[in-house]
């Protein structure tokens, strides 16, 4: 005979302010099977848990219903409490009186009645619960890192240095990401490439890191500890083993006028190309969309000149599979193009550029070798206007959020310009100067006070070209919105940082959440910043929200430490909420008829065929069997089973029906 205890939590004012908890507890006393019922202000607190434990011992409880918050919040807490008191954790159920009741209804009798009903249902269910044990699964101690920018590099090195294997995949021909494009970094003005390239080389040479560039994730199946990643290695059209990276092919390639991605289209590259001289790996790929041979069927000049015969025009894409224990998503961000702003006239004006383009102009490895020369005619601009907010914090026309890095890099840009063109004038239009960070405010003050950058608080309504000058029209809101007009030679827009346009696709492949702006969503905004809601998948860097290098590196190391924690165990325990095909005594063996409809609908390939044999080894019957390691407990097979031979442990048909009956039989 079931002996159920009911424990109603006030959650402070959260539930208690709306629901009469005492009344709910009193009503529960009369439910069939309930031998003890009480309420308490904070059931999850230490005294609250002690109360449950004491009641279990005193009243010899066999099952527990806690009416409190969402099971997402505290189910593990109360299951642990019960098992410590000697009741199997899976004999404990939670009635969600907060999210499902008190938070969404007004205070009143109806709300209290609903809370009582929710408890009634769970009491019905728990009477049919069976003790379950967690499932143990082995862990593949290899991490998959998606994205080879500074986030991916840092997290890969941290995991690899701790002795575990890493598969690092990068979409572009080289790792390095946006950081490799940057000139100098705030607030110290140290050269970005100087601090990054040694790490890139370390990644390439690390015995624990398998670096796969020019590759994208095709699919990810499985679950924490046991993922299967299928990776598409896009054809580079070269044999990497034979290629020595001598550069002969790129020198000879006749298609030389392709706007280069690394230089943000301010410089050209060839069709067979290495993105930049410090690229890792330093071997070329052929850009098929721009290669004369792929487009017109003639050329093959690179093949003719290659001293090691490494060119492979017929190379196909290759799909490789890796067993993975955990994943770090570090895919970064992109910036909006200046064509997003009709009022700033892109397309028409070559000298209105993005911040990322300015980085290339200021970089020693850039198209101007670090001299600030404007794109239209190569002249050194005498007057530059920087717009510190272009598209960010603009719910009407742009994006709602703050891109976070622009205030700092705009100050840096203005400073770099002043350091290179001493007599030049630099103006910055800004909304606010957001310089929260170590040495950050000092940095922006230095730009204003020492480098004499003219900061104007206000927005720019229009930029247009007149007589070879860019007329920047704005307002100075600190002078009563006085109109300001600057005749500039070049304008730099700190355009909004946004998620990659394929971020949502990747999120769907990985089954992780993404927000309205297509940034990936962390499991908890404060306490689980690097986890996702999918176990075993972690986030690092600007794919979660715009962030600067120090924050990205910290987050990357955070994700690495989570994975190292995971890899420190040989086995993982999983919730036993999985499907089970019933078994019966011979000669029936199972009510399963062996139609295998379940197998065809299972999204996780978790259903196998089991042959039941007699003593002579002859097959008597073939029935379905669920691999508990693969099953995710989605229940699709249960719905499809025609003979009702499958059930989900913890959510059996019987349990569900009892919940409904409890509600229907309510007098």
């Amino acid at each position: 005979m079931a002996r159920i205890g009911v424990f109603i939590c006030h959650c402070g004012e959260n539930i208690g302010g709306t629901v009469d908890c005492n009344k709910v507890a009193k009503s529960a006393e009369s439910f069939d099977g309930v031998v003890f019922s009480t309420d308490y202000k904070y059931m999850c607190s230490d005294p609250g848990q002690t109360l449950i434990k004491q009641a279990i011992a005193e009243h010899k409880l066999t099952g527990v219903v806690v009416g409190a918050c969402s099971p997402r919040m505290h189910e593990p807490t109360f299951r642990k409490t019960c098992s410590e008191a000697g009741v199997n954790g899976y004999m404990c159920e939670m009635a969600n009186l907060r999210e499902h009741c008190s938070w969404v209804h007004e205070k009143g009798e109806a709300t209290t009645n609903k809370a009582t009903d929710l408890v009634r249902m769970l009491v019905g269910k728990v009477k049919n619960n069976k003790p379950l044990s967690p499932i143990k699964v082995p862990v593949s101690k290899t991490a998959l890192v998606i994205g080879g920018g500074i986030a991916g590099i840092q997290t890969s090195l941290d995991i690899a240095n701790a002795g575990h294997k890493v598969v690092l995949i990068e979409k572009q021909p080289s790792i390095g990401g946006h950081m490799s494009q940057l000139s100098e970094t705030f607030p110290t003005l140290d050269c970005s490439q100087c601090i990054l390239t040694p790490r890139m080389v370390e990644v390439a040479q690390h015995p624990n890191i398998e670096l796969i560039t020019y590759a994208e994730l095709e699919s990810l199946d499985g679950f924490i500890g046991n993922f299967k990643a299928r990776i598409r290695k896009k054809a580079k059209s070269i044999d990497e083993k034979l290629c020595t990276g001598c550069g002969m092919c790129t020198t000879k390639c006749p298609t030389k006028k392709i706007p280069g991605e690394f230089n943000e289209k301010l410089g050209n590259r060839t069709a067979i190309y290495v993105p930049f001289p410090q690229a890792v790996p330093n071997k070329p790929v052929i850009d098929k969309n721009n290669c004369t041979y792929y487009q017109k069927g003639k050329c093959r000049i690179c093949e003719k000149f290659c001293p090691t015969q490494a060119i492979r025009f017929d190379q196909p894409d290759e799909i490789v599979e890796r067993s993975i224990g955990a994943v770090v998503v570090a895919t970064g961000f992109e910036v909006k193009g200046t064509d997003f702003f009709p009022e700033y006239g892109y397309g028409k004006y070559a000298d209105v550029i993005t911040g990322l383009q300015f980085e290339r102009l200021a970089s020693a490895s850039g198209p101007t070798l670090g001299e600030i020369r404007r794109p239209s005619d190569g002249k050194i601009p005498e007057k530059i206007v920087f717009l510190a907010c272009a598209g960010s914090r603009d719910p009407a026309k742009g994006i709602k959020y703050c891109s976070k890095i622009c205030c700092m890099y705009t100050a840096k840009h203005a400073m770099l310009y002043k350091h290179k063109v001493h007599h030049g004038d630099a103006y910055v239009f800004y909304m606010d100067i957001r310089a929260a960070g170590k040495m950050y405010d000092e940095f922006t003050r230095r730009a204003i006070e020492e480098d004499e950058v003219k900061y104007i608080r206000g927005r720019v309504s229009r930029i247009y070209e007149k007589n070879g000058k860019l007329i920047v029209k704005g307002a100075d809101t600190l002078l009563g919105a006085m109109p300001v007009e600057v005749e500039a030679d070049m304008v730099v827009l700190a355009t909004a940082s946004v998620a990659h346009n394929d971020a949502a696709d990747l999120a769907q492949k990985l089954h992780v959440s993404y927000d309205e702006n297509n940034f990936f969503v962390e499991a908890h905004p404060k306490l689980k910043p690097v986890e996702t809601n999918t176990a075993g998948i972690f986030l690092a860097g600007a794919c979660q929200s715009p962030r600067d290098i120090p924050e990205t590196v910290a987050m990357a190391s955070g994700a690495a430490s989570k994975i190292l924690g995971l890899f420190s165990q040989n086995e993982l325990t999983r919730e036993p909420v999985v499907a089970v095909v019933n078994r019966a005594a011979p000669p029936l063996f199972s009510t399963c008829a062996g139609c295998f409809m379940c197998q065809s609908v299972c999204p996780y390939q978790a259903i196998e065929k089991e042959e039941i044999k007699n003593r002579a080894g002859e097959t008597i019957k073939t029935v379905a069997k669920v691999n508990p390691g693969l099953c995710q407990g989605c229940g699709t097979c249960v719905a499809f089973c025609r003979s009702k031979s499958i059930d989900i442990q913890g959510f059996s048909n019987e349990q569900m029906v009892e919940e409904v009956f409890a509600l229907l039989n309510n007098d």
Partner: protein
Amino acid sequence: MSKNMSVAVYPGCSLNGSSREYMESLRAVLNALEIPVNEVDDWNCCGASAAHNIDQDMAVALPSRILAQTAKDGYSNLLVPCAACYNRLKHVQQEIKTSPEIRQKASVLLNQEINTPDTIVNILEYLQSTVMPRLEGKTLKPVSKKVACYYGCLLVRPKGISDEKQIEDPQGMDQIMASLGAEPVSWAFKTECCGAGFSVSNTTTVARLSSEILIDAADRGAEAIIVACPMCHSNLDMRRREIEKYSGRKFDIPVLYITQAIGLALGIPAKKLGLQRHFVPVKI
């Protein structure tokens, strides 16, 4: 053509007064293309810039009555050539569509049920959807001039009310003029304000703002400015003397309504298009 397929026109006060040539040229063009012109029956003032600055009830009630008059006669489309009227009517249409309270209030004030036509179109939308397709195959007298298409501030704004996608750099008028054989200049003052209703109360401001517009158009070689708003026209045309005094420059650039430009391309006599009414002579 049944009534609910055809379009009703709301001329508004300006098109009967200071900018009657706008209506004259619109009628002339539509007549030439055999498109019937159905004026909204017994229409009233939309409230213009005055009503919504003084009295919110009035600002809703006046346009509501116009919309109700249009709907009453079974028209589902309403053409509003005046940019300011268009802006007010479109605003109020949205308000009564989305707010039952405002609709109720207007209904009480006017003592009648308030219905609205499904769509309200401005002159550019109407020309592009209905007039331009009918010009295909017609022999046009090309307007071989460099023109500055001036949209002003009300025609394509505000976002959320206007259907224009590129509110900062609209293209509709440029496309129409290009298809008439003109060369639209790329210029910076397409949607800047001309001073609008300050024409009377603060003429100096109008002179300043309008002179910036004229200077940029002139510097980029425009031989005519094309407008679609009575206010823009009167400021750039009627206030030319003040503009020239303020800027110290002489301009002989005429200002034409888009409908006048189409009329010229169709070979309609200047007089029927009301070109003689302009202060700045239009030399064809």
